[in-house]
């Protein structure tokens, strides 16, 4: 008698592996197979594009555009200053010693005298293609609050010796032209010179204008209060005192002549004084004096890029907020629905290493929202751009931006990244709270509510809000370039953010990483 041999059953399937790739695939399958989520994600991308285009369609520029100069490369520029100049043929150099820089604000008394010299009041030497506003230039200057600078073609700015200038501590400045290249030097004593920078100005004519200049930007009093927000500009002048002026390469027979470039220095004698309060006298007129080799030059205006207050493209992209809250909801639901259906127990049985589950979820959610957001923003960008053009937002102040320019990529990729990390933050909060309503509310309050609060708070706390909360990342949608050498009012209300765009994004990322960290810790500690 033979006993039948019982072979134990063995599945012909390969044993499953619990690698991270399998985990990602499992989470992707979970997302992909819930029809509502896929529809929601497509709708969120569509809403991002639609709302952005709709905002661009309504954005009308009814204000008359201020008259600005067009600098090299098409940059909008303010180019108003008082210029004491001589022609300089071909190569040469100009050297000068600056012994003082003083200034005045056409201030109503309540401002006090504290802002007498503007931080970006400038006096120094300049080599300029012509006296036409907007023409190419390179300049060495002493500023009211930023030491010696070499600036060129409006956007270039290099720091030299720090500190303020006085008779006891003067500054020597020198500009040398060889061909198209202009080199700037500074010195504290006139014998030891340091090279500050060199720049090649394309298309410089053989005869250029070289000389002394002074200019001082308006004092901007920006207030943002509960009642309203306002920016009032007060005219200012500055006066630089120069001696040891030496020009090599000048043509014989020419004397120094003064000119107010771009109307610069037709001094701001318009005074804004509260009724019943005494006003400071009118500002001294622009001009220059020369005696015994000593020059004083008085000027008003600025040589700088022109930065508009309103950022139409950045404001238009706030339409992505509608897509953002949809993606926040999807991010939170991706985990809270597991708790609601008890699916989380299956998930954690299949993959007992809990931290990796959450990381896999974050990667899947982040990638999907990034792709959807990128599609929405990339479709919206060119349409919004052309709508803004036809609504009166035109160059040079509002330059045409291509999708593949630096700013274009920042806005489009930045919007997608903002949506993705926002959804991951919502996912982390969802893992912590386990309830969809609470998690979605917390995420929306963290990301969107600061934008509301910032419009009602005074300026300083509002700016701190835009530095510390996840809403700092909205700076990525800023499409107007802000230059450090231009003092302009930066109001959150106008879509201006105190942090540089990618630093603001880093703040959001820090929130998301911290949230995920706490969520992983709690997921390990608690029962599912």
């Amino acid at each position, binding site marked *: 008698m033979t006993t039948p041999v019982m072979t134990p059953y063995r599945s012909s399937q390969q044993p499953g592996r619990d690698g991270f790739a399998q985990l990602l695939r499992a989470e992707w399958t979970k997302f992909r197979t819930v029809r509502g989520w896929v529809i929601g994600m497509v709708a969120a991308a569509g809403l991002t594009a639609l709302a952005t285009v709709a905002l661009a369609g309504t954005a009308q520029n009814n204000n008359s555009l201020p008259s600005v100069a067009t600098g090299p490369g098409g940059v909008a520029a303010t180019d108003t200053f008082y210029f004491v100049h001589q022609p300089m043929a071909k190569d040469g150099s100009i050297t000068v010693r600056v012994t003082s820089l003083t200034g005045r604000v056409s201030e109503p008394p309540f401002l006090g005298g504290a802002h007498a010299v503007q931080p970006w009041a400038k006096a120094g030497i300049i080599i300029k293609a012509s006296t036409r506003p907007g023409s190419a230039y390179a300049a060495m200057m002493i500023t009211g609050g930023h030491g010696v600078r070499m600036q060129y073609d409006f956007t270039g700015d290099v720091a030299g010796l720090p500190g303020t200038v006085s008779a006891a501590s003067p500054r020597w400045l020198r500009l040398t032209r060889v061909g198209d290249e202009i080199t700037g030097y500074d010195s504290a004593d006139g014998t030891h010179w340091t090279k500050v920078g060199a720049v090649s100005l394309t298309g410089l004519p053989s005869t250029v204008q070289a000389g002394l200049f002074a200019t001082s930007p308006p004092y901007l009093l920006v207030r943002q209060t*509960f*009642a309203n927000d306002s920016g009032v500009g007060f005219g200012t002048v500055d006066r630089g005192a120069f001696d040891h002026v030496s020009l090599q390469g000048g043509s014989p027979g020419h004397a120094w002549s003064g000119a107010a470039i771009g109307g610069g220095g037709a001094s701001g004698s318009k005074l804004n004084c509260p009724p019943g309060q005494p006003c400071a006298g009118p500002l001294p007129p622009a001009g220059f004096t020369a005696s015994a080799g000593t020059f004083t030059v008085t000027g008003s205006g600025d040589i700088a890029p022109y930065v508009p207050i309103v950022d139409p493209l950045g404001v238009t992209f706030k339409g992505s907020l509608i897509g953002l809250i949809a993606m926040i909801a999807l991010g939170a639901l991706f985990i809270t629905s597991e708790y609601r259906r008890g699916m989380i127990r299956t998930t954690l049985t299949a993959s007992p290493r809990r931290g990796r589950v959450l990381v896999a979820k974050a990667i899947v959610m982040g990638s999907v929202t990034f792709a959807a957001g990128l599609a929405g923003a990339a479709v919206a960008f060119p349409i919004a751009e052309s709508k803004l053009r036809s609504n009166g937002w035109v160059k040079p102040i509002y330059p045409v931006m291509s999708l593949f320019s630096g700013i274009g990529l920042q806005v489009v990729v930045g919007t997608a990244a903002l949506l993705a990390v926002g959804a991951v933050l919502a996912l982390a909060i969802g893992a912590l709270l386990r309830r969809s309503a609470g998690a979605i509310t917390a995420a929306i309050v963290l990301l969107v509510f600061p934008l509301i*609060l910032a419009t009602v708070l005074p300026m300083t706390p509002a700016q701190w809000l835009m530095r510390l909360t996840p809403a700092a990342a909205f700076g990525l949608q800023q499409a107007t370039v802000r230059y450090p050498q231009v003092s302009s009012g930066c109001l959150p209300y106008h879509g201006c953010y105190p942090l540089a765009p990618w630093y603001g994004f880093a703040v959001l990322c820090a929130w998301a990483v911290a949230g995920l960290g706490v969520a992983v810790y709690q997921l390990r500690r608690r029962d599912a």
Partner: protein
Amino acid sequence: MSWPGLVRWSSAPEAARDALHAEWTKLRTVPSTGWLLLSAIALTVGVSALTTAIVKCPASCGADTTKVSLTGIELGQAAVAVLAVLAMSSEYSSSMIRVTLTAMPRRSAMLAAKAAIVTGVVLAAGALAVLGSLLAGRLFLPGNGFTAAHGFLPLSLYHAPTVRAAAGSVLYLALIALFSLGVATALRDSGVAITVVLGLLYVLPVIGGLILNPHWERRFQRYSPMNAGLAIQATKGLGKLPIGPWEGLGVLAAWALAALLAGGLLLRLRDA
């Protein structure tokens, strides 16, 4: 044939009382209710106190002190919205709705009872939140330069516009609750409902504030639920408001009514 004891024919007032009692029991016995009411009060008073502590007079003397003291309502309303959404959507997520509708087959009566109970608790919590906020304003503002020398009196409930702003803010929270309840009744899912409610409350004002078109900006300010409803807090410069205080609250009431009507209609038409 009669079925003694099985069906109790109750009179209309009794039925209403029973419905209210049932809704009150459901709301009272969920732990989240207490936490959400507490956070509504804490968030409102917290943000109001912080704001009144930050704002200084020589810089912001144009501020409307009553409105400043009530800034926290803008955050506290989020907790109120969650409470009202959960009051309805949790019935669906736990399938309690079938029991509820079996016991109370008149669906609109059930919705009305729920609305009454939610409104009641929100009014009570809202009153505490508003009084706490005004107290914070009364304590902090004089120290920040909002003194008689600059033409400011301490906040007081003897000042008619302040009373209107305070009472109106409590009503505002109640209307937000009704609006959220209506949306949740129509949409059933807590996640979707809270997203729609907070989207309308928070995203519309941001977009409306940034829109570069005076015509559309004014429309947003007149008709978005939060901007319009919070007009009730203004006590200064009423002539310059995009919408008057009571008209603004009326706009929010219209949003709430529309949401409740839509929710009620869908509740009657759909299977639970």
